[in-house]
């Protein structure tokens, strides 16, 4: 098993210690504050529809850019200014998957959404957040297929 990218595993471990809903929310808000939208050097609005995360109502977009070492840099944007959960999810993926071994990125299971956000998120939101992860995993698999 390739395991998960170390930074992602750190996040999962940290969230595993959370015992209250308020703690979880405060942690996620702090992470969402770190969200940085895709730089203009990579993409400018209006974005290509191919980058859109299908099924994410917060209108998340994902870009995967090749790095010289064979890994990927991931970039994100969330067009809905109220899409804080999507921003938090993107910030986690940005920090943990950019430059990580592709096999580890490709191994991420969408179920980690529920470790981060809890199991009482709405079906729609859970699906949208999972689809952001799926987009990252898909990009990693595509890159692996080219190696």
């Amino acid at each position: 098993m390739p395991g998960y990218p170390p930074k992602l595993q750190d996040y999962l471990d940290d969230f595993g210690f959370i015992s209250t809903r308020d703690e979880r929310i405060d942690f996620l808000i702090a992470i969402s504050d770190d969200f940085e939208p895709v730089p203009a050097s990579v993409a400018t609005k209006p974005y290509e529809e191919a980058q859109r995360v299908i099924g994410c109502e917060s209108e998340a977009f994902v870009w995967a850019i090749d790095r010289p070492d064979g890994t990927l840099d991931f970039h994100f944007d969330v067009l809905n200014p109220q899409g804080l959960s999507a921003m938090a999810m993107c910030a986690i993926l940005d920090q943990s998957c950019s430059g990580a071994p592709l096999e580890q990125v490709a191994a991420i299971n969408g179920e980690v959404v529920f470790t981060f956000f809890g199991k009482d998120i709405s079906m729609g939101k859970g699906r949208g957040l999972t689809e952001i992860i799926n987009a990252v995993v898909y990009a990693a698999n595509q890159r692996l297929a080219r190696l």
Partner: protein
Amino acid sequence: MSDINSRGYTNPDKLVSTDWVAANLNEAGIRIIESNEDPLLYPSGHIPGAVEVDWVKDLNDPLRRDYLDKSGFEALASRIGITSETTVVFYGDKSNWWATYALWVFELFGHSNAKVMDGGRLKWAEEGRELTREKPSISPTSYSAPERDDSQIRAFRDGVLAHIQDHGQLVDVRSPGEYTGEKLHMEGYPQEGAVRGGHIPGADNVPWSRAANEDGTFKTAAELRAIYLDEIGLNPEQPTVAYCRIGERSSHTWFVLRNLLGFSDVRNYDGSWTEWGNSVGLPIEK
């Protein structure tokens, strides 16, 4: 967007503007309530003095698929500091879809002195109005609620079955893909919360969001009539049922039909597709 009173609604008093809320923030007898899908939004910043009502932990019974009961509602009302005389004003994300859901639940307990802030959270924020992370200090109140009355604005499975056998009016407010059942078969969507895809026989499809403008405000009565009366032929005098997946999006349409267009008998079927699409023996259409 035009002034609420100029839009031709049957009951314009059910809507207030962001200006009205800003002018009444500190009024005794008024409680501003934020209800969102995204649980991060209220703690990240809310209208000063607003309290949060969360659709999961506050409105639903934790052990049964049902809403809170009389004692639960009384405890909630006490926590958010309202009495039966308080005017409650809901606002939230997703063009107020969750705000109308909370309002609908409050009306099950007879708290009809409930309004929605037109445009919701997004409009307030985009107007540059103040948002704070400071939670208000609320003095608990005593609230004596009646038993929840499910008989007037809520629909149940058997009632919906009888309704369609009588060729009653039914509005499916989900997306076209959900309505046709196509979404169940899309790659990446292994479950849609139901075994089968499609819709309740006889239902017309009007996605809930068609009632809202881009900025989250409600369309004018003339625009709404063009959709619900002219386009799909609903009769405001006939019993009507709205449904979606779990009853949240359809509460938005329920609010529109009942309060803005004055439908005399409209119910929200909160069992919705997650019940109907999973039930043995119930007919569906694709």
